[in-house]
């Protein structure tokens, strides 16, 4: 199993992602620069957090137009797993690889805090390390994480099981008090229609060490490693 992290000028959580992937996969992922037009042959492509191109214009908007994103779209089309975290999620929605959009937080401020997430389904390569309905703790750190989709899209992604995670209370209750950014239906992460592309605002990569914020995000990476274990190296 192999992974690549796509970096743009302004990416800044690729180091965190390298640590989490290395820990789970037993080897370091490849780093691919945005000007490259080709991706190495890998089983997992990750778009990390940060402020690609300074998030000028709109978060993720310019990165979505960069050369490497055409290669990412091709691979996604072929069924390769793609994970976008935080700014990576914004890039994937701007690139139309995921439905919906991420708007400015309802509180209008950047928010860095721990939240609880509810796993909506556990039958995907990204979530097979969790149980359905499992609640885990993990941080968010963003200014534009307010997920929105029009009513038709929302009905579709809810109906097709494309919601990956929802913000919730430690007990799993939903409600505005537990959602840090005003996201519609408390959505923290979504899949594409084929389920091989996942975007989420929270940072599971920053919750993979017991002494540094706990292990809430670890099953995501462990599950991916297990799902890809059969894949050629």
């Amino acid at each position, binding site marked *: 199993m192999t992974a690549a992290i796509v970096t743009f*000028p302004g990416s*800044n*959580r690729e*180091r965190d992602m390298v640590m989490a992937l290395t820990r789970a996969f037993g080897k370091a992922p490849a780093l691919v620069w945005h000007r490259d037009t080709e991706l190495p042959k890998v089983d997992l492509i990750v778009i990390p957090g940060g402020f690609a191109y*300074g998030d000028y214009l709109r978060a993720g908007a310019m990165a979505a137009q960069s050369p490497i994103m055409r290669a990412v779209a091709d691979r996604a089309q072929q069924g390769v797993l793609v994970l976008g975290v935080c700014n990576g999620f914004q890039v994937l929605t701007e690139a139309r690889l995921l439905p919906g959009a991420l708007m400015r937080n309802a509180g209008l*401020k950047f928010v860095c805090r721990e939240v609880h997430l509810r796993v909506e389904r556990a039958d995907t390569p990204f979530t097979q390390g969790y149980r359905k309905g499992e609640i885990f703790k993990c941080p968010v750190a963003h200014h534009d994480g307010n997920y929105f989709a029009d009513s038709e899209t929302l009905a579709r992604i809810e109906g097709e099981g494309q919601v990956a995670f929802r913000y919730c209370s430690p007990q799993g209750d939903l409600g505005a008090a537990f959602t840090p950014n005003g996201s519609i239906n408390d959505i923290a992460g979504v899949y594409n229609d084929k389920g091989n592309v996942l975007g989420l605002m929270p*940072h599971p990569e920053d919750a993979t060490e017991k002494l*540094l914020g706990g292990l809430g995000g670890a099953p995501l990476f462990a599950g991916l490693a297990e799902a890809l274990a059969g894949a050629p190296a």
Partner: protein
Amino acid sequence: MSEITPPITPSVVAEHGLSTEEYAKILEILGRAPNRTELGVFSVMWSEHCSYKSSKKWLKTLPTSAPWVICGPGENAGVIDIGEGLACIFKMESHNHPSFIEPYQGAATGVGGILRDVFTMGARPIANMNALRFGSPDNAKTKHLVAGVVAGIGGYGNCVGVPTVGGECNFHASYDGNILVNAMTVGIAATDKIFYSAAAGIGNPVVYVGSKTGRDGIHGATMASAEFNADSEEKRPTVQVGDPFTEKLLIEACLELMATDCIVAIQDMGAAGLTSSSFEMASKGGMGVELDLDQVPARESGMTAYEFLLSESQERMLMVLKPGSEDVARAIFDKWELDFAVIGHLTDSGRMVIKMKGAVEADLPIDPLALASPEYDRPWEKTPTQGTIDPASVPHSGGILATLQTLLATPDLASKRWIWEQYDHLVMGDTVIRPGGDAALVRVRDTKRALAMTTDCTPRYCLADPVMGGRQAVAETWRNICAVGARPLAITDNMNFGNPTNPRIMGQFVGAIEGIREACLALDYPVVSGNVSLYNETAGSAILPTPAIGGVGLMDDYTKAVGVAWRDGDSLVLLGATKGHLGQSIYLREIAGREDGAPPPVDLALERITGELVRELVAGGHVSACHDISDGGLLVALAEMALAANIGADIMNKAGDVPLHAWAFGEDQGRYIVAASRANTVLELAAKRGIPANLIGRTGGILLTLKGERVLLDDLRESHEGWLPDYMAVA
């Protein structure tokens, strides 16, 4: 000269912030009258901000060496050895004046500037901190300034991807017209890859990298060296505009270039921009320099030599490269899409020669200008001492725990979560201890080591007794670092004071330096970098003297560190002596309505052995939590621990002869609370070192109880967490 410039009249000299005597010195150095560009250069180089002319004499008295100090003050930042071939590079710097005029950009560029000071030396920044002081919450401007400064610090630090892991924030009416924004950056470098600013090698190319130069920030350093008056709003154009995205690229490009062997010397363009950076580099290396301003990347057309030299446009660096390495360097900056231009070369003339469109715009001797800058021994008055307040003379009414709840909702003691949740304190994935405790702890990547860091100062103590206040500021950083289990190594000092030409203010400065000096010596805890911000006055009214101290310590094994959250069923031991000192306490100010008395004395010898005991307790795994006792006293510290753990405690009254309210809220120094499953071990180890230690309670439940009084943690939390969000929410 290429332009006809108006003659240098006394009013032009005054506008440039230079005194008649200083102008006479310029005439003597040059042997002629300067042109306007040259006058501009003198004005920034000899500004208080760049020259430290009022403070130099006293700063020289600070201890700056220790076996682990690699580089003390004088470079862009201080450098200490942290083992395994690694160095920690850090500094704190003020951006007070700009932040008052334009809070978002002022604070943002303060963060940008201090980051550059650290990565200029070869370090990857791993953490930011900040020390903020605002005016009274009742002042109409305060809310706007808090919102802007916090958003600016977050906006910059979050984008560059360096975690902002801690800091402090106070409110006091003395800051109504002059807020303080002190930003600190901590970075890590290899000890054999540290970069300095001394230029060397005749003919070597001088290279400009980063953003283009515009007209922003001209005379920022001069503005920062004067009092505010009614016209200060008009100084908005002197505030720079930051671009954290470019800074992020600049960090990556510089670190990539530093991994090669191309750089001879490097210096960021901070205050006084191109002028200051080129002068300092040439001066330190005993070189001359010739620059061609036509080669400087410009953001706008028609800029004059004066503007190029004095612009404080952000995100720019100046380097001297080894000959023939320009192509390697250029390729790296091309990759990061940053400007790269050879703008001159080093000479052996000892002069700075500035050319533009073929004409000489300035021709100045470097050594006299940079090294012979004014140094003043300003008259000063010792601050009169105040009497110690007898705790029994301060009346108390009502319940102790009700008072605690009131205190927890006062501006200085209320939770600052509203602030630090706007800072990404987790990016880079190495934050072991997050904001809200004592020191923050950040792991050194790929090792078991971690750096503890904190910023502290108690300005009300400094006003009452600058020497004791200076001592206390250093001691509190020491205590915060020891409380997590780390060994304090060195400090950076950010001296914020009023107008030094006032002997009373100068006396505060001299006193604080003396206190810092005593503490550094007693604790083996040298000053390795620092910054001075004077003239924090508006219409003759000065800020509280605020020598903010940033401390850094080393933890050999981060897995052994402890935070402030205790465990259920722990015993609580109070280390240090409690005499109930109420003078200058938060209790006295907020409950009794008085701001007087002597501040609590700091016994440095006792401070040292108590800190050593705490480190021994943490290293030995004898304690599950530890918190130092500072603002608000014992009960406030206990409440903070209980809230962090969400576990209550039954507190035993061990006041003895001390009135209960003074025992509860007195601010005696040198004290910690530790939580342990086996209190006897703690008591024995304390006794061995002769340190007072008392069992004062046991943890558990959802209440704090004391002498028949009780309060729900949830109620305390509501008070503690509620104040700042409620304050900021009201339009």
